[in-house]
């Protein structure tokens, strides 16, 4: 079920009505759990079984790990959990990719191996809930937390519909305790929840789908060499589209949860105002970057084992982070570029970072623009269907070959430039601010006017219930 669909409007109204009806807390949690299964099954009912497998396996395994004192047995139990979770993820998400690469490898060795067709439908959001349940078992294994005491609470943690399919990837200690005592939203929470839903849907429906998607699609689906202006505009369009799409989802999810009385953590903090790549990853998909840091980068040794190992750990983390996004080498290159930029920044910061100049506004803005420029280069690999398209785009973007084809009509030029300037201005203004503080500081008439206009634009954009980009990951 998509947030930007009429089905969700009806679904959410029913969930809210049940949540605020005079039932016991246990019944309300059961309602939320059943509602979450319906939310997921609305795409493809059989895939709910995957959620059940993930839930039961991690519940049983984590409890056994907690009670087990023998290290070898604990490790074996953890392996079972990881095998089941990554096994499902691997089968559904990476099976075709592995087959394809195996075929290429065999061909290179002189064998014309024809693998069977791999027409497997990817269960929506499998990468998200797999990481969420793995975090639970890993926390218990690493003795960071004990298992949940209630199966209902744990099942709801795995399945909680606002963040089930595209995050934020919530840690057990952030969400499970919230299920323990009765939760209903205060009037203020409810109001702010609806305000966040409005902002999230405005980002998704009006900006991402209505104003930017067409330009990005036109540019990235052109098979010829493009004019540099079009290549850049298409890339900027995608840059804005993916932010508004994904941050729009996260903001809506946070708002939906808040309407029910639950607090989900931030997933984005105005990333296009980042100064440097480490700053970018503190602002972009925060729940994934912190997951990778805590369960991959730090266990690999983090920065504790010398410089060379630190760089290797960074690269490994980002390459795997890239692969998490999709079963394609273009995503690996995207992750690799981010790893390279993070490593380069670390190397440069160690040598030149302490200088006074970096505290001044001018150089910081220049660094922010450089970061934005490089982030856009990485988006080319993220969005391109294949390397041929990516290289063609990069070529014309960096060499300014003016012979390329122009494909974007004036309306797209105006929309992309307008949205990009507005987005960068908002990100820079909000760089060190919080939305809730700004909402209070704004003149009330402006807040009400902006809220009303955003809602109106959402309605008249009409939308086509386009899926969120991150659902495919």
């Amino acid at each position: 079920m998509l947030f930007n669909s009429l089905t969700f409007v009806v679904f959410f109204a029913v969930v809210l009505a049940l949540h605020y009806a005079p039932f016991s807390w246990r019944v309300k949690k059961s309602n939320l759990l059943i509602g979450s299964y319906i939310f997921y099954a609305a795409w493809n009912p059989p895939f709910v079984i995957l959620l059940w497998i993930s839930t039961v396996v991690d519940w049983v395994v984590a409890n056994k790990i907690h009670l087990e004192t023998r290290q070898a047995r604990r490790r074996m139990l953890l392996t079972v959990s990881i095998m089941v979770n990554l096994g499902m993820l691997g089968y559904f998400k990476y099976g075709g990719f592995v087959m394809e690469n195996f075929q290429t490898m065999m061909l290179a060795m002189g064998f014309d191996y024809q693998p069977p067709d791999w027409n497997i439908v990817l269960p929506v959001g499998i990468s998200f809930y797999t990481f969420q349940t793995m975090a639970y078992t890993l926390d218990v294994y690493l003795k960071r937390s004990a298992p949940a005491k209630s199966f209902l609470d744990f099942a709801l943690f795995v399945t909680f519909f606002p963040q089930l399919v595209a995050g934020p990837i919530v840690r057990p200690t952030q969400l499970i305790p919230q299920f323990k005592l009765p939760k209903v939203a205060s009037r203020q929470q409810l109001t702010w929840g609806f305000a966040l839903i409005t902002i999230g849907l405005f980002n998704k429906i009006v900006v991402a789908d209505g104003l930017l998607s067409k330009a990005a699609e036109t540019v990235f689906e052109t098979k010829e060499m493009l004019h540099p202006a079009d290549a850049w505009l298409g890339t900027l369009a995608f840059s804005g589209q993916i932010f508004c799409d994904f941050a729009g989802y996260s903001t809506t999810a946070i708002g939906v949860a808040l309407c029910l009385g639950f607090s989900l953590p931030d997933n984005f903090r105005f990333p296009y105002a980042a100064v440097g790549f480490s700053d970018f990853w503190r602002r972009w998909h925060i729940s994934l970057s912190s997951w990778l840091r805590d369960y991959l980068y730090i266990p690999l040794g983090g920065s504790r084992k010398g410089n060379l190992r630190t760089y290797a750990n960074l690269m490994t983390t980002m390459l795997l982070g890239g692969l998490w996004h999709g079963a394609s080498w273009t995503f690996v290159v995207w992750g690799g570029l981010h790893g390279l930029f993070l490593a380069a920044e670390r190397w440069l910061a160690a040598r030149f970072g302490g200088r006074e100049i970096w505290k001044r506004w001018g150089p910081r803005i220049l660094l922010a623009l450089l970061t934005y420029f490089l982030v856009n280069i990485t988006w080319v690999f993220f969005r391109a269907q294949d390397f041929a398209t990516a290289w063609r785009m990069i070529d014309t973007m960096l060499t300014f070959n003016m012979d390329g084809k122009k494909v974007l009509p004036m309306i797209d030029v105006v929309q992309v430039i307008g949205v990009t300037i507005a987005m960068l201005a908002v990100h820079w203004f909000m760089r060190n601010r919080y939305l809730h503080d700004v909402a209070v500081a704004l003149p009330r008439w402006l807040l009400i006017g902006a809220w009303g206009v955003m809602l109106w634009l959402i309605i008249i954009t009409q939308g086509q219930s386009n899926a969120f980009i991150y659902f495919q990951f």
Partner: protein
Amino acid sequence: MPLYTSSSDISGHGADPVFERPVPALGRSAAFALLIVIVLMLAWEAWVRSEGVTPSYRNSDGLWAEQRRRIAGDEGDGWVFTGSSRALFDMQLAVWENLDGRRPLQLALEGTAAVGVLEGLAEDDDFTGKVIVGVAPGLFFSGFEYRRQAMDRYKTETPTQWFGQKVSMLAEPYLAFYAYDFALATVLRRQPLPHREGVEFSREVRKLSNMERDRNTRLWDKVDKNVAYRDLVRSIWAENWMPLAELPEPVRERILEARTKQLDRAIEAVKKIQAKGAQTIFVQMPYEGHYATSEIDIAPRELTWDILIEQTGVLGLHFQDHEEMQGYRLPEWSHMTGSEADRFTEAFYGLVKRELAARQAAEGIP
């Protein structure tokens, strides 16, 4: 992170306090914002209605999928109309129902070659009736499928899409603004901005029709009565058109290849339909003006239509061959007004019945 803090403990020894989202006090802002939305929506709806729009059902993929599913109900043995926009606009279900006693299913898709729908019917065991296939030569023999997603939706519709369609249809007959042609992005895209040199830009087709609950469709009055709007539609039809001979060689080759492929696909589908005892009738609805030139240029009758009818052996009704299909008013060269479509459907029904009877007599079928 602390060691041994239960995932269920809210504030156990050493536990992090559970995150609680800061919430600003917004007072009655939500109520006032809602008031603004209502005022703006009323103004927007009033503007759309002032453009001559009246509420009607959206020609959505979900509605097509819903109508397509009726074949699997108990309606697979009746009449089915398919084709592109001419079959959609010119064939009036109520008129046909009055004459035949049974209302046909309307499965035509604008801008779309009907071969895909025909193949679907051929593979569908539930379809045992008669299908009338509108052939718009430039589309049918090109394989172009502007509405491919509707056919895909029928095969892959999820429960949430099915439910969303039901909810949407509760609002559609009451809201004029809830039309594709007045979606914000569409309105923005037709603003008069300077042309960017070197860019091939085709304007979107504007609103042409009103649709009823079962996809019965009538030409929008404005196309007929508002001369400026009619001329706009005509100019969009003729935009960027080039004679086949002037197209680049690779494009021309692709068109000729597609023609052969479409013929093969259609012939194959008709054979399958015949094999299960169902019937296919091909029809070319009237066209004029720009289309009188472009249709026969891209798909000359003797190289397309005549071969299709000859090789399938089914009934083919071309408007050039039958008086009953001539003399109708087509304001924008391609589609009939509602009243003309009523007149056409009545005459066409008689023609179909007569031709089928003649074929049966010729084949010695009582």
